[in-house]
C-alpha cells in the first residue's frame, strides 16, 4: 500500500488553511511518502497524517495485533508492519536523528512474554534492531521510543528520495493456549535535523510527483 501525498500539491491544499503553513525545507531531510505492508497492516488498515513540514508523521493501525488463545491460529502470535519511509535527502552531507514512538497495549498472563521490535535498514545496508520486552502478568498501555542517528551523503544537486525500511513487529511467546495480546496502535515518526553541509545549489525546476 502506498501513501503518497505530493509535497507541492500538499502545500497548495494547505495554503488556504494557514498562510504560514511551514513547507518542507529542501535543504533538510524530510518524509516524502510512506509505503507499507505486512501481516499487521494489510491494505487499508492504516491511517496516516503528515506535519506540514513533512518532518513528522503519525500512523494509526486497525489490526496490528498479535494474540494467542484457545482456537487462535499460530499465525496470530506474530504480526509485522514494514514501513518504507521515503526520505527526501538534500544534496550534501546531513546528520539527522530519526525518532519513532510506538504506542500500544499489552496483556499477558503469567509465564507469557511479548516483544515489540523494530528493524531499521536502508536497502543494501546493514540493519539495526531496537526492541522492548514484556513479561506477564501484565496489562497496560506502553510507549517505546527509538532514536536513531542518521548520516547521509547525496551528490545529486537536488537531493534524492531514498527509502528507509522500518519493520515493526509484535510477538508473543510462552502463552500456550492462554489468551494474550500485544498491539501497536500508533507510530509517531519524526526526523530532526542536526547538522548539514551542502556544496551545490539545486537549480532544477521542482517536478510534481507521479
Amino acid at each position, binding site marked *: 500500500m502506498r501513501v503518497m501525498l505530493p509535497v507541492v500539491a500538499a502545500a497548495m491544499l494547505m495554503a488556504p488553511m494557514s498562510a504560514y503553513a511551514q513547507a518542507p525545507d529542501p535543504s533538510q531531510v524530510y518524509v516524502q511518502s510512506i509505503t507499507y505492508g505486512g501481516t499487521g497492516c494489510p491494505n487499508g488498515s492504516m491511517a496516516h497524517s503528515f506535519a506540514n513540514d513533512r518532518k513528522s508523521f503519525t500512523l494509526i493501525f486497525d489490526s496490528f495485533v498479535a494474540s494467542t488463545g484457545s482456537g487462535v491460529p499460530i499465525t496470530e502470535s506474530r504480526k509485522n508492519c514494514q514501513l518504507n519511509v521515503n526520505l527526501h535527502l538534500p544534496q550534501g552531507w546531513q546528520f539527522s536523528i530519526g525518532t519513532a514512538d510506538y504506542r500500544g497495549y499489552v496483556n499477558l498472563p503469567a509465564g507469557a512474554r511479548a516483544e515489540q521490535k523494530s528493524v531499521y535498514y536502508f536497502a543494501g545496508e546493514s540493519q539495526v534492531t531496537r526492541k522492548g520486552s514484556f513479561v506477564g502478568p501484565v496489562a497496560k498501555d506502553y510507549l517505546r521510543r527509538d532514536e536513531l542517528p542518521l548520516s547521509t551523503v547525496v551528490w545529486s544537486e537536488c537531493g*534524492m528520495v531514498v527509502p528507509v525500511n522500518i519493520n515493526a513487529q509484535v510477538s508473543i511467546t510462552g502463552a500456550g493456549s492462554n489468551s494474550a495480546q500485544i498491539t501497536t496502535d500508533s507510530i509517531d515518526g519524526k526526523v530532526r535535523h542536526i*547538522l548539514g553541509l551542502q556544496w551545490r545549489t539545486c537549480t532544477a525546476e521542482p517536478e510534481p510527483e507521479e
Partner: protein
Amino acid sequence: MLRPQMKSRALSIALCAVMSAAGLRAEPETLPVTVRGVTFQGNGCGPGSAVDSFDESRTRVTLIFSANLVAAGQGMSAGDTRRRCEIGFALTVKPGQNEQKALLVVRGHATLPAGAAAEVLTDWSGGSSSARNEERATLVSKGDEGGDDGFVITREIVLDASPSLTVQTSLVLTRGTDALMTIDSVDLAIGKAPYSATFEGPDTTPPIITADPSGDRSASGWYSGDVLVSFRCEDPESPIVPELSDLEPKLVTDTGSAKGECVNVTGNSSAVTLGVRIDRARPRIVGGHYPGAGWIALGAHVPSGLACVDEDSGIESCLIPGWLDTSKTGLHTISAVAWDRAGHDASATSWYYVGDAGNCSEDGWRQFAEPMFRDEYDCVSRFQSVLKGQ
C-alpha cells in the same frame, strides 16, 4: 544561528563525514544497471499481498510481503507449510555492461519450537540463456533448541547483460508443529548507490575535549598575563552538536579556571576544566638599606640583608650575595636579581661605604653602622686589632 567558531566546527565535522563516506569519492557516472519494474507471482505473494518500493536511483528495490508465511499447528492445514514467490525484476542495462554485482537480501522471522525444522530457499536466474543459476542458495533454519527470532539471508549475485533477473523464494516447514516462519521483505541492491545513508551504531564513547590556553606558560605552570583558553572537541564516532556544547573560548584575567563542554549527537558528553594561574607582578628585592649612612668597617662580616620576594607565583631564582664585600675601603655597590615562577624578573642595586681607621677622627667614628663604636678610640682600636690580626 551558529556562532563563527561553531560553524567552523560543524564544517570540519561535515567534511570529515563526507571524506569518510564509504565508497563515495566522486559523483558516480551513469548507473550501469537499474530496475525498471517488478512483478510477483506465487502463493506467497498473491495479488494485493506485496508492495514494492524504489529509491530514486532505481538501484535499490524493497519488496514487502503481507502473506509470505508458513505455519503448522492449530488452525493450519498441510497447505500452509509451503509458500513460494517468484519475483521478476525488469532491468535496464547500460550498453557494454557485462557484469554488475548485486546484493539480494531476504529478511524474515521464525518461531520454531524444539523439534521443528524449516527451510528458506532462494535461487535466481538471469542472463541471455535464462537458465537457472547453478549456484542455488539454500539456507536451513532448524529449531532443535527452539527459538523465536528474525533472520537475514544475504546473497551476492552477479548480473550479466540480461535485462531481467528472476528470484524465487520458497518457505517450507519440514517438521514440527506450532511453528511459524515468514519472509517479510526482499531487497535488491545493485552496485554502489549514488548516495550514502547509514544509521550510526550505538555510541557509548564520550567525545574527547581538550583545552588549549594561549600565551607562554612558564615551566612552573604560571602565566604572566591574560589567557585565552580555546576548546577543541573530537569524536570519531558521532558528530558534535554545537548548540548543546560550550566550546566558546574563555578569557581568563585572574587566577581561576575555564570550563568547556562537548556533547555529541548521541548525548554523550565530556567536560574539561583548565586551571589557570596568573601572576602579573614582578618579584621584589627587599632589604639593602644599611643603618646610618651605611659605613661598614673594613673587614667586617656583614650579611647583605637582601631578599627576593613574590607573593603570587613565588621566587623561582634569586641571585644575591650573601655577604657584603668589605675587603677594600670606599664606595661599594651590591646588586641582586630575582625571577618569579611566571617568568618575571627584577633587579636592584644598593650601595654602602667601607671605611677604616682614617675615617675615625673627630666625629668620623659615628658614621659607622657596622660595627657601631663608642668613641674615636674604640674606632681606631678596632682597625688596629684588625691589622694585628692580619
